[in-house]
């Protein structure tokens, strides 16, 4: 494993192909520089972090459902943090905080984007490895170290960071404001800074690889949508993570070196008036959300990319409106930098800014709507195969619709006055970002498992896993909308102290039971995943009949990805079910017989009936095309 081979000519590589690379265990499995191994490392670390995050959520859900009851096993598990089997309020806050941090950064940023960017960018672009395998390796190990630092905060005497995953100062800046703001928050900040380093190293590598190392014929408009999504994600990360780095450094200064970036006019109980003056806590929020909002798209864009590929492959149809999909990805990426203020409508920010941020925020709904409609149009008249990956992709679209629509409420500055920080927000982002992105991740895992491990996962178990997870996610998050609308605030340790919330006791129990069910379903996945790695059915070269070029190489991983030269690409990634071909797919690397650059299928009867005639009025065309979606008119 050396960088020289990567830059070597094809002939040089052919010589190498005869004998295997002999690598020590450490070079191959630990400090590996091979992008496929690194993606596996990201995935498995991500899965472990995801399990921890999920267990945390189950713990605090139990507290919310049965606030008066005591669970003996909690004391065994958590010790002094759950004396008498009841979780301590400070520990509850810590669980909420670390659950959020783990899920947002460690699972859905590193676990999702890290895994699939690493796996797919070289394989789908047709390059031998990442532009810089060494940076790639560093990226993983920074991420790993960061995970360890974050988890180590559970062993701090004052507990982990507990001021919410946004760690707003002054709560997080004042060590005496709550126990979690002591050593726990320092560790949190260190972990996040290490994480940012990892994200930046990864991001720059992804961008360079996509832009410079595509194989012959792989022009930008032939890129699979996954690669477009990863490219834009990496750009978002590269531009926004440094801002969080700055925000975090300032917070460290405020905490440990006595500066006043975020602190002013504070009198703390038991300490007295502090000397800090002139800072602004709202400035932190601006800096945080300047990352925080693009971060949401850093999470969801890769999931979109994966979904696009999976839906096209399994519906056996070209994705509807490839260029519209790319444009909507682009516009979402650009707009995501201009909307951070919608998290801050009621922080006391100038109301005029509120109106501006509201405009831009609701504009984002347009490209998002386009994406949804394009997915629906792709499903229409397909020949749909329900692999687990496809099921999860459909689940993603469903969550994205449900959660996206509530975004229209929250993006509206006026409506946000009441809904801000209520359970409505919890429901909204868990659907649109949490569940949707995790479904994208599952979809990717089921789809590219054969590529990663050379084995197949069990489809029946996958389907059961999907339906259980899907149902339980809706059962958990849908009722939360109504709780929020009834005025239940988020991040409350228990509701039984406020009589008005008594009516939600039943619903809270229902949610927790559903969450436990969802948690159980993940055991199926874990079993399926780890069992299949070792004992799964061996995979074939192209098990899904897919067009993209990662399936053109051998099942067994080879160093440099392809024996011999990298494949040449002749067409776009979505040539499924072309009328001029017998097979319902047409791999990108398969040479055609003098076909035109832009293939337009001969119009079928159906298409003819609503194809745009210049004499037709636009309204007529519009309604006739919808009539077709519902099949109201006979073809």
């Amino acid at each position, binding site marked *: 494993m050396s960088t020289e081979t990567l830059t070597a000519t094809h002939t040089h590589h052919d010589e190498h192909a005869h004998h295997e690379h002999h690598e020590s265990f450490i070079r191959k499995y630990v400090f590996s520089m091979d992008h496929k191994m690194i993606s596996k490392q990201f995935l498995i670390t991500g899965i472990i972090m995801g399990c921890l995050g999920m267990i945390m959520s189950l713990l605090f859900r139990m507290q919310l459902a049965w606030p008066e009851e005591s669970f003996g096993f909690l004391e065994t598990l958590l010790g002094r943090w759950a004396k008498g089997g009841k979780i301590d*309020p*400070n520990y509850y806050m810590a669980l909420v905080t670390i659950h959020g941090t783990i899920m947002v950064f460690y699972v859905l940023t590193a676990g999702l984007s890290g895994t699939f960017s690493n796996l797919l960018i070289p394989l789908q672009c047709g390059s031998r490895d990442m532009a810089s395998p060494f940076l790639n390796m560093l990226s993983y190990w920074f991420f790993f170290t960061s995970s360890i630092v974050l988890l180590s905060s559970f062993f701090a005497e004052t507990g982990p960071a507990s001021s919410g995953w946004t760690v707003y100062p*002054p709560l997080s800046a004042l060590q005496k*404001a*709550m126990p979690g703001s002591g050593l726990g928050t320092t560790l949190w900040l260190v972990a996040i800074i290490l994480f940012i380093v990892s994200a930046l190293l990864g991001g720059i590598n992804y961008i360079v690889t996509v832009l410079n190392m595509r194989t012959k014929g792989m022009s930008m408009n032939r890129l699979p949508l996954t690669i477009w999504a990863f490219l834009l994600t990496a750009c978002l990360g590269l531009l926004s993570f440094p801002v969080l780095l700055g925000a975090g450094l300032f917070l460290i200064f405020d905490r440990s070196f006595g500066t006043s970036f975020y602190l002013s*006019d*504070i*009198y703390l109980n038991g*300490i*007295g008036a502090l*000397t800090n*003056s002139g*800072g602004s*806590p*709202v400035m932190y929020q601006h800096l945080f959300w300047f990352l925080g909002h693009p971060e949401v798209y850093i999470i969801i864009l890769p999931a979109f990319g994966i979904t696009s590929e999976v839906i096209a492959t399994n*519906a056996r149809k070209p*994705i*509807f*409106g490839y260029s519209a999909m790319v444009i909507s990805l682009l516009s979402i990426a650009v707009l995501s930098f201009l909307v951070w203020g919608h998290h801050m409508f*009621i922080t*006391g920010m100038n*109301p005029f800014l509120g*109106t501006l941020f*509201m405009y831009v925020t609701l504009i984002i709904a347009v490209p998002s*709507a*386009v994406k949804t409609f394009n997915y*629906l*149009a792709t*499903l229409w008249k*397909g020949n*749909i*195969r*329900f692999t687990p990956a496809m099921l999860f992709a459909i689940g993603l679209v469903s969550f994205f619709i449900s959660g996206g629509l509530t975004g*229209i409420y929250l993006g*509206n500055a*006026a409506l946000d006055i*009441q809904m801000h*920080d*209520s359970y409505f927000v919890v429901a909204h982002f868990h659907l649109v970002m949490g569940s949707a992105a995790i479904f994208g991740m599952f979809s990717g895992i089921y789809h590219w498992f054969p590529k990663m491990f050379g084995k197949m996962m069990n489809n029946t178990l996958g*389907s059961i896993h999907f339906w259980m997870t*899907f*149902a339980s996610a*809706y059962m958990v998050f*849908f009722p939360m909308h*109504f709780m929020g609308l*009834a*005025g239940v*605030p988020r991040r409350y340790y228990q509701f039984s*102290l406020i009589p008005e919330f*008594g009516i939600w*006791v*039943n619903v809270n*129990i*229902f949610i927790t039971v559903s969450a436990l069910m969802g948690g159980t379903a993940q055991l199926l996945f874990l079993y399926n995943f780890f069992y299949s790695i070792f004992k799964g059915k061996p995979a074939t070269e192209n098990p899904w009949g897919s067009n993209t070029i990662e399936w053109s190489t051998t099942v067994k991983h080879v160093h440099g990805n392809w024996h011999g030269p990298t494949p040449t690409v002749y067409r776009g990634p979505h040539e499924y*079910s072309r009328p001029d071909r017998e097979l*319902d797919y047409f791999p990108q690397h398969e040479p055609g017989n003098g076909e035109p650059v832009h293939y337009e*299928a001969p119009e079928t009867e159906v*298409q003819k009936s609503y194809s745009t005639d210049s004499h037709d009025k636009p309204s007529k065309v*519009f309604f006739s095309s919808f009539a077709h*979606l519902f099949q109201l008119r006979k073809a």
Partner: protein
Amino acid sequence: MLIFFLQFIKNNNKFAHNLKKAISSFITRMNTTTKNIFKLALVAIIICFAASLISKSVDIQHFNIENYSAEKPLFGADEYKYEAAKEVPANDAVASRIKWSLLLFVILLVLVLANAFDISALTSKITGRQTINSNNVNKWMMLIFLVVGLSAVAWEYVEHGKLILYGNASSEHGAIYDSMFNITVIITTIVFVITQILLFYFPFKYAKKEGRKALYYAHNNRLEVFWTIIPAIVLTLLVLRGHQTWRSIVYADMDGSKSTNIEIFAFQFGWNARYAGEDGKLGVCDYKFISGKNKLGLAYEPEVDSLLVELKAAIVADSLSIKNLPTTLDNLKADFKVAKDYQNDEACESISKEIEEITCGDRLDELHASINRKSKQVERIIAIKKNPKVYANFFTKTEEDDIITQELHLVKDKLVTFKFRSRDIIHSAWLPHFRVQMNVVPGMPTRFTFMPTKTTREAKNENGESFDYYLYCNKICGTSHYNMKMKVIVESQQEVDAWLKTQQPAFKPMAATPVIPAVDIKDSISIIGKDSAKKKLALK
């Protein structure tokens, strides 16, 4: 269990062989009708079994039907123990039996399903045919999920829709707010239903069929333009309407001339309200003036002066304890020995913690920081007092008659402006019934103007006697965040006036400033200036 079973089959080839033979002959002998009958019978047996379990466990005599009336749905009924269980404890036991039998039922169902899957997998392996077409199962699941899901959503809209706050706002702008909300609900619900139906119907309709080919249909620009423009138009309408609503709320009475000003003061973990007294003006406040007697930091000169004296005394005390650190350490060590002799582990632990604090220098740093803080505060207060212009801005004599309360009383149909101030960290004042929320940020004053339109009495008539308006904290602020609330009462002008009269003004004129021997700060600083204490510690 299943795994053990499979392992067992694997290990006993003979047994497995016989079993396979038996199953395959069984399957081949059955035609589809008998198979279906078999399945139905299995399900019927399970249901009968479960039903018998439940009916046995439900003791009719103890089942008090009144506690399960229409307003309290049967689902999860056992959890009404907060109200119901105290009166009729027998219900608890009944409910728990229901719970257990349900759990048993679910376990049974899972086992049966697992067995069914197992058998089908085995048979498909043996016969080489697929007994279950998973594509078909998933296809039908799509439709089932769509129907069940949409009906569940409809149920939620009806049942939980009753519980949400919208439609009966207790403030003037709340009505505008609610209409904005209603419009958004209507639009989003329509889009939600249509898109979800399409999303689940298409996979059902166009599920894979052998021999069929998907339609090659890569794009239709006109269609795409249409579904870009339509959302754009709808969103523009929503944005314009939202813009209007937002402006009418946040720009209400900006100069504060038409409304009564009330200060809402937040601290870890509670709220105070401050009313202007008889002069109708709120006095000036500053965090530097906060003391035990002056919790809001009013610029009341006698109190500020006594704070200065207190601070100076505290500085002296701190510097003395720095001086005495070595002695304290010796005393602690002696205490530790005593505690050890008496085998008092708890005392040992706490004392050793203190000793560690001193020996590693934490205590010293803390004391230095405390002196630094206090002398800075003294300096700043003196600076305010020395500059006549600043002095005039602070000490306006309007604060004496201010009224500080634990409850918030508002006048019906009268504009009120909240001026928010936080003492320590960010809180958020949320009055959900009035559609009012604003963050309370230390060092940055915020405001909110609105008009309550429904008295507490009227709201109680609508929602029941136990109802009360509350102001909640809605920004994570520490350990007791979940219990940081203030009661809000809306009344007529006369009632509020009468209530205010019963409250004490913040400060009555004081007799004289208590005289404590004042020590100059410079003296105390000179004491700590020498690092003698540190050196001594280092030697130890």
